[in-house]
């Protein structure tokens, strides 16, 4: 059983109200020195069988068509070591 992680983040040019809300709250909580916060999603997929090139290609397709909304989001797929 292997784990594949898919990270989905809003594209850099797209407004991220969630990340902004977190960032604005930080100074009030006494945390300084954070100049930007972006909030996205992390999916952990448990994959049956070997995670070979074919499996990764399938997961990439899944990320592209389903896990991410590529109109506004970018994604990244990687096998967790």
């Amino acid at each position, binding site marked *: 059983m292997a784990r594949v992680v898919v990270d989905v983040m809003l594209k850099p040019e797209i407004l991220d*109200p*969630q990340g902004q809300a*977190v960032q604005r*709250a930080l100074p*009030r909580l006494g945390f300084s020195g954070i100049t930007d916060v972006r909030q996205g999603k992390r999916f952990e997929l448990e994959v049956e069988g070997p995670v070979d090139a074919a499996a990764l290609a399938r997961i990439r397709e899944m990320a592209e068509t389903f896990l991410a909304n590529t109109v506004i989001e970018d994604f990244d797929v990687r096998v967790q070591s």
Partner: protein
Amino acid sequence: MTARIGVVTFPGSLDDRDARRAVQLAGAEPVALWHRDKDLRQVDAVVLPGGFSYGDYLRAGAIARFSPVMETVIAGARDGLPVLGICNGFQVLCESHLLPGALTRNDHLHFVCRDQRLRIENATTAWTSSYRPDQEIVIPLKNGEGGYVADERTLDMLEAEGRVVARYLELNPNGSRRDIAGVTNEAGNVVGLMPHPEHAVESLTGPGLDGLGFFTSVLKRLVNA
């Protein structure tokens, strides 16, 4: 002199006006409290109303918990100040660790607004003494993150200590563990409730008057005190 009940407005609070109206209809004096003020203006009880404080962007209630007013509310609650958290207010109370557990995304992943039947399981708290034990009431429910969760040990403890204040009947609208709609702290002065009693205080605008009891309960307690 009637009791003064404060209603906190956080940025993004929505049902604060409704909560003040409910307080008034129950016969108490509503006092608007502002999230940036630590001063509770000598209120006798506090309502944390529903809404989307700070947009609920991180987790519902997570940012509001750190507001100046909450410092005083948390300290007061530990000293017995009656505090009712409705919906977002319940989330704030859990995030503040005044109540155990947490509220998560509804299991069906949709926001849900419906008239909800509940059973009052504990009619001895500061906010439920106007109800009969096991009384069934209908009040509106509206949330996107209303699923009550806690580990088994905590759930068992809540049950054993009678700290489940209200339970969903007929339909569990959000996947809450053990159909829990509201819980209280050990002392019974702090209550968190997912459904909205403040929307059931006038027959014209709500499903009935079943919500008024929460506000008359605390009033009774304050006047008798």
